[in-house]
């Protein structure tokens, strides 16, 4: 069964066509990188998979289940069981690091003890064990990055979506974090769909790279 499947998806904003008959299959455990110039539709694909926008035509499936089809969202984002790291990280500034991780666990109705245990375990996994009480704006860029990753992982998703998460970091940190990311992905056996416009970054992360050009695949 495919982990993520886009079947001839089209999407336009007004009269600007962003995706035209776009298809993509991703097997469980793959690390697929979408690579392409600014404005070619990479974020649009992630947002379609996450369920923030609906396709004009075509369908999106997760784990064999159709979640969006032809202008309809069949399964809303909160029920898709995805993890996502946003381009701007989107850490909630009014919550502590721990609060950011616990929010999703609370929504799932998980008990307090279990919440605390999972939060602590995940923070340690990304090397942020001692920072639970801090507010996001008291962290450095790389640390915020790790917290955003931890927040996405704490719900134990099978699929992780990442939108240029490392683009704002310096090269040194970028190298270190992407190595850790690969290690974590292998350890947790999740499917990764990763967006970047940096060819070098792509080559270090991907098991498969998909080069895009204005809404279509230019080469695999």
């Amino acid at each position: 069964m495919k982990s993520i499947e886009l079947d001839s998806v089209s999407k336009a904003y007004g009269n600007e066509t962003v995706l035209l008959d776009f298809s993509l299959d991703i097997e469980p455990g793959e690390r697929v990188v979408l690579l392409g110039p600014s404005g070619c539709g990479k974020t649009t694909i992630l947002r379609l998979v996450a369920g923030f926008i609906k396709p004009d035509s075509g369908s999106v499936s997760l784990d064999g289940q159709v979640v969006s089809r032809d202008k309809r969202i069949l399964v809303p984002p909160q029920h898709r069981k995805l993890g996502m790291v946003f381009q701007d990280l989107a850490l909630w500034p009014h919550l502590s690091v721990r609060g950011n991780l616990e929010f999703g666990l609370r929504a799932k109705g998980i008990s307090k003890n279990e919440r605390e245990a999972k939060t602590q375990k995940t923070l340690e996994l990304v090397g942020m064990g001692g920072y639970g009480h801090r507010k996001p704006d008291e962290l450095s860029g790389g640390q915020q990055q790790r917290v955003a990753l931890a927040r996405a992982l704490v719900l134990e998703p099978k699929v992780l979506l990442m939108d240029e998460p490392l683009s704002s970091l310096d090269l040194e940190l970028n190298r270190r974090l992407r190595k850790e990311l690969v290690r974590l992905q292998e350890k947790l056996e999740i499917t990764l769909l990763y967006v970047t416009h940096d060819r070098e970054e792509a080559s270090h992360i991907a098991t498969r790279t998909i080069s895009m050009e204005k809404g279509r695949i230019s080469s695999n």
Partner: protein
Amino acid sequence: MQKRTISYMVVAVFLLIGLAPVLSMLINSIVAEGRFSLGAYSSVLTSARQWNLMAHSAVLSLLVSTFATCLGVPLGLLLGKTDLPFKKTLTALFVIPLLIPPYIIAVAWVDFLGIQHLKGLWACVLVLSSAFLPIPMLLTMIFLRTINPRLEEAARLVSGWAGVLKTITLPLILPGILLGGIVVFLLTFGEFGVPNFLRYDVFAVESFTQFSAFYNFKAATASSVPLALVTLLVLLVEARFLRERTYQIRPTPDSIQSSTSIRLGKEKHFWLGMASLLAMALVIVPLLVLLLRSEGLNSYTQALERAGHSMVRSVTYAFWGATLLTIMGFFLGYIIHTKALAFWRSVDSFTIFLFALPATVIGIGLISLWNTPWTNFVYGTAAIIILGYLAKYTALTSRIMVTQFAQVPASMEEAAHISGAGWARTMFFIVAPLAKRGLLAGWIVAYIFSIRDTGISMLVYPPGHETLPVRIFTLMANGSEQLIAALCVLMIAATLVPAAILWSVPRLLAKRKVP
């Protein structure tokens, strides 16, 4: 979906509060004894007196909006664009007249000059211009902050500030200037407290007197329809030319802005003197006159005796009004910002229409809707006053919330959904806390406008539910000058003290936290 259901519900509630009274008033005005009839209109429209009143209203509104704009825009530039010392204090001072019922300013001036020297058209122009001056001033300051400083910097390289202001800054804030003029025009058009007190007959006074003095509900209704039409016309013009540009105001942060403020240099003292003189004349003198006139504890004990209950009621109603207005503004602002419903734009325009609509029109509409044997639980209680606040002032809170939401990235909410949270949980734990500054600002503005409301409360208050502005207004006919002055001071205190406390407490707490 939760989001759609709740959005529809909120809009439905708002239509019941705002649209139903206006419709009910319209229907009432064309039905006589169970039949369609334009009798009420023909008597209004054929009388020369009514046309004369309409002309008075137009002249007064034009003069006030011209004066307020001509003074308010330069003042806004001075306070928002230069390195003038004491900018914040001066701004706060100039805003005060807007925060209290305009007739209180009229009372102060009359106390100062005597009614024989202060009546008629020009007296109204003086009082209302100073009351509404803050509107063009604040809009100028807000629009100045939306200009990308780079545009001005680029022009500075080739020209002095005078040239930059003329060719870059002023054209960019022109929509704000026009908007200010329009708002002042409409507020003056609907104002009846001041013209009534200073004895200048205008149209808004007419529908009020028809109702309150002659109990002629039909005539009152028919004469408020022209008021509604003028409002609609002016707003259509506004929407046609300005709406898109005034839509989402995104101020840039202080740090960027300060890089392009005008250095006054040696002229600093001159401008500070001018601004202080103006503040003295328009704000400090009237307030001092009231304070001095109310001399002595005696007049205050008397004031509390005669209007203490009204004061408590005013504060209570304003508290509930502000709370409900904040909730309504939060949801409507959210619907408008996220375009959650296909007709979000109409919702926005409608709140603004209601804000601009003269209070008499809303008041008469509320009465015609709720004055039935089955709805006495509204008509006979404070609920009708609060409904009036909600109908008229929701535009303020919803616009404040739209501006606030524009500063919260959409990804905050999306991240919550991805974490498995539904809409209600996301709104409560993520969106509302992130918008808390807007909620607080909205609450304060709503409190001030609710407590200072005279127009609606005057028409709809049930026996035993008089608010303080209404009580003062009725006591003005026979109370002593001292008593009235003391009441006005109490009114100002009831408005400003809670607002100031709410405004400063979170700031003080925030300061304490910083190590």
